[in-house]
């Protein structure tokens, strides 16, 4: 189960996710993210503080979203990953691919 809230802060779309980004929920998230970029969003910050779990399906979602964002010279940031999610990003090598910030506020200020 994954819930999503988005709100615009200046030019940035802040996306707050809560729950699990798994094989069941990742596809809908991916479609939403690609739709935002199609609609012209160029700055996405994901607040992952309430995400307990991510699997390779969720990593795929962030990879595809980041690629699409790069193709429009946009900016994608991830914030507030918990220890479990951080571990998955590390063992997959994804921590090197993404701009990851300890807190939402630092991601927005950077």
């Amino acid at each position, binding site marked *: 189960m994954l819930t999503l809230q988005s709100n615009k802060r200046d030019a940035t779309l802040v996306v707050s996710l809560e729950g699990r980004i798994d*094989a069941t929920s990742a596809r809908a998230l991916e479609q939403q993210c690609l739709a935002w970029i199609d609609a012209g969003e160029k700055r996405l910050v994901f607040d992952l503080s309430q995400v307990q*779990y991510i*699997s390779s*399906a969720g990593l*795929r979602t962030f990879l595809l979203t980041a*690629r699409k964002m790069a193709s429009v010279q946009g900016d994608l940031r991830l914030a507030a990953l918990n220890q479990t999610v951080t571990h998955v990003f590390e*063992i997959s*090598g994804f921590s090197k*691919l993404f701009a990851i910030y300890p807190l939402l506020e630092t991601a927005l200020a950077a």
Partner: protein
Amino acid sequence: MKPLHLLFPAQRTRLPEVAEAIHSFGCEAGWPEAVCLQIELALEELLVNIMDYGYPDRPPGQIELMLQASPDNLNITVADDGVPFNPWQHATPNLEVPLEERMIGGLGIHLVKSIMDSCTYSFFESRNRVILTKSL
């Protein structure tokens, strides 16, 4: 502790209830939350592989899942009658390449190998059997 034994169709719609059962088993065994989530992750990756690729030209069969835990050891067996497939033969994806070149294939299996201490595969009497172990 009594083993967890599940039998379910190889369909993605069954994933949430399987994850729930694994989580309950882990809680009952007294695993830290982080360990529960790692085991859930390893099994999601394996099960999704079987569900997506195990039955390309016939209706999904049954997956059998068994978790046996002692206070310091976990032993997991996953068996299915889909096409023969050894997940551990997959090459590890290159984790050093940039975003544009990163491939997603094989990543799930890489996560399983990273989480578990040992992963074995056998094919016998038309069944794939994967055995995973982890020290707790």
